[in-house]
């Protein structure tokens, strides 16, 4: 088994798959930067057991098919077994069969719709019980029960809305409208949506719009003269990076649920933000996806230092059950399902493009990707 182990000085090579072009580049580039920042930190501190981590980076250009091909290339031609990457669920689903067949390990730093488990994936973004559940209650309590769903047309929004619909019903709410737009939707495509929202008398716009069209959604909202204090857009995916792209004034007052905001007040986060901005520019905000991309590399490196082998069968058991002081607070990887136990926070965007944290979980929220024990409490009432 040991025949493939290299020389002591040989670097640890890992794959990195985030889009640097196409409609998802705005957010995926932040994940790429955070990944490289973590790798830099580890290498500056002497690497892992004296060996450097060297990333092999490809740009799948926001194309689902390209993700699968890049993963194949990484594992077959570049001979890496560990891959950090993917933002959209469709890209994760494209990479999944490749890492499963060739026994790789994909580190997926993005919130998603849940209902998945693979022995070849470590999930470090939020599952629905870690964001949707608290968000739904908060919105019903503060804004009302009439939700309008607007999303991008692919797997995550539809699945995520299915979960949100269930949660909303348990809270006595209703979905008063639902519409999906192409990932490449233009600004004008959102004009009729705003009209529908007004006509439906919605209290909340629940958005699962991702990518460049996120900006058009919020801009059309502002132009339509809707008021975030009355009918906010609530999202699981609109981070500091999207707010920056749409304009601080456009985003102000809108709601996002996430495990991490740049405004989380602790020393670990202050240091993370400072290093991120030193490397990428003072006006570059961090966000939940970048934070997960950052801390997952550190969890990987900690496990690697113990196994001293990058082999999936060695490293995965060392990762499961491990914990780490992440910028959002202490997080741990569930041994039961390979998902990460995270914090739940609800933020309201302010005029400086940051989120004021209006609600926070008192402890870590256990990952429950299949919603086995979540969101059902009120069902039996």
């Amino acid at each position, binding site marked *: 088994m040991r025949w493939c182990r290299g020389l002591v000085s040989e670097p640890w090579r890992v794959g990195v798959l985030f889009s640097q072009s196409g409609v998802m580049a705005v957010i995926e580039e932040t994940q790429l930067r955070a990944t490289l920042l973590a790798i830099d930190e580890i290498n500056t501190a002497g690497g892992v057991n004296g060996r450097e981590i060297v990333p092999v980076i490809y740009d799948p250009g926001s194309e689902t098919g390209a993700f699968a091909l890049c993963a*194949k290339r990484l594992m077959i031609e570049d001979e890496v077994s560990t891959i950090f990457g993917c933002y959209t669920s469709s890209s994760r689903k494209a990479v999944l069969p490749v890492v499963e067949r060739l026994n790789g390990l994909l580190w997926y730093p993005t919130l998603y719709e849940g209902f998945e488990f693979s022995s070849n994936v470590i999930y470090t973004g939020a599952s629905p019980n870690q964001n949707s559940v608290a968000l739904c209650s908060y919105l019903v309590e503060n804004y009302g029960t009439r939700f309008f769903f607007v999303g991008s047309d692919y797997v995550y929004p539809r699945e995520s809305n299915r979960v949100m619909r269930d949660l909303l019903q348990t809270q006595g709410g209703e979905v008063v409208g639902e519409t999906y737009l192409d990932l490449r939707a233009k600004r004008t495509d959102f004009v009729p949506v705003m009209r529908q929202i007004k006509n439906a008398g919605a209290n909340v716009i629940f958005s699962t719009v991702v990518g460049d069209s996120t900006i058009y959604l919020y801009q059309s909202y502002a132009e339509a003269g809707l008021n975030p204090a009355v009918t906010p857009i609530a999202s699981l995916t609109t981070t500091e990076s999207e707010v920056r792209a749409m304009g601080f004034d456009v985003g102000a007052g809108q709601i996002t649920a996430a495990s991490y905001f740049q405004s989380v007040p602790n020393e670990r986060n202050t240091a993370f933000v400072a290093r991120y901005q030193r490397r990428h520019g003072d006006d570059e905000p961090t966000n939940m996806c970048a934070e997960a991309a950052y801390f997952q590399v550190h969890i990987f490196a900690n496990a690697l230092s113990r196994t001293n082998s990058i082999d999936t069968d060695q490293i995965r058991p060392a990762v499961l059950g491990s914990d780490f002081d992440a910028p959002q607070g202490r997080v741990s990887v569930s041994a039961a399902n390979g998902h990460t136990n995270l914090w739940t926070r609800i933020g309201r965007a302010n005029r400086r493009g940051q989120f004021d944290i209006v609600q926070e979980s008192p402890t870590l929220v256990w990952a429950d990707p299949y919603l086995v024990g979540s969101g059902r409490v009120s069902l039996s009432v």
Partner: protein
Amino acid sequence: MTTRNRSHPTTRGAQSPSSEVLCLDIVAAVRPDQEGDALIRELQRSRGRVRRLWPLPARLPEDTDVIVAELVPELPQCLPWVPGQPMAALIAVMAALQPPDLKLLRNCAPHAVLHRPFTANTVLTSLALARAQFLYERRLRGRIDKLDETLRAFRRVERAKNILMQTRKIDEEEAYQFMRRQAMKRRISISAIAAAIVDSCEVLG
């Protein structure tokens, strides 16, 4: 014929291949040497439709049951699928004397291998094994897809059950029975009935 084979597998099985390996569509990307010719003949004896391709095309065809291909370094790139989603059974053809390239073998993820020189028995057994492995994997993948969908359906049905219990003041068993009856009457799945109940509850508010 097949019935007799099943009752006497040890004595008669070897002579007549089971229907699993008969009449398959086979793509054979093998070197056009004497051994390659012999391989094609053996494959044809399984009554398969054999398409011979050489040199190895940049992208092997995917509309086939079995691909028999030389295990050359460029083979992973020529396979028309990404690892984990094979569209046909793959048999890797290897040399007898050179040490095997195990990494290359792993990257191609074949369902069986064939070593030169070929014999009638090894060709047939590889074909049977590859086909069986491929079909088994495909059934497993299908089962996972089905399980995923079942999980979702389960949540839907539970949700609908609760709606029925609340709105009609009936107990759990009666709620399930109601959905079963409706599903049978309309000849659709319980999951579809549950989805309709959940949706209509929403519309009615």
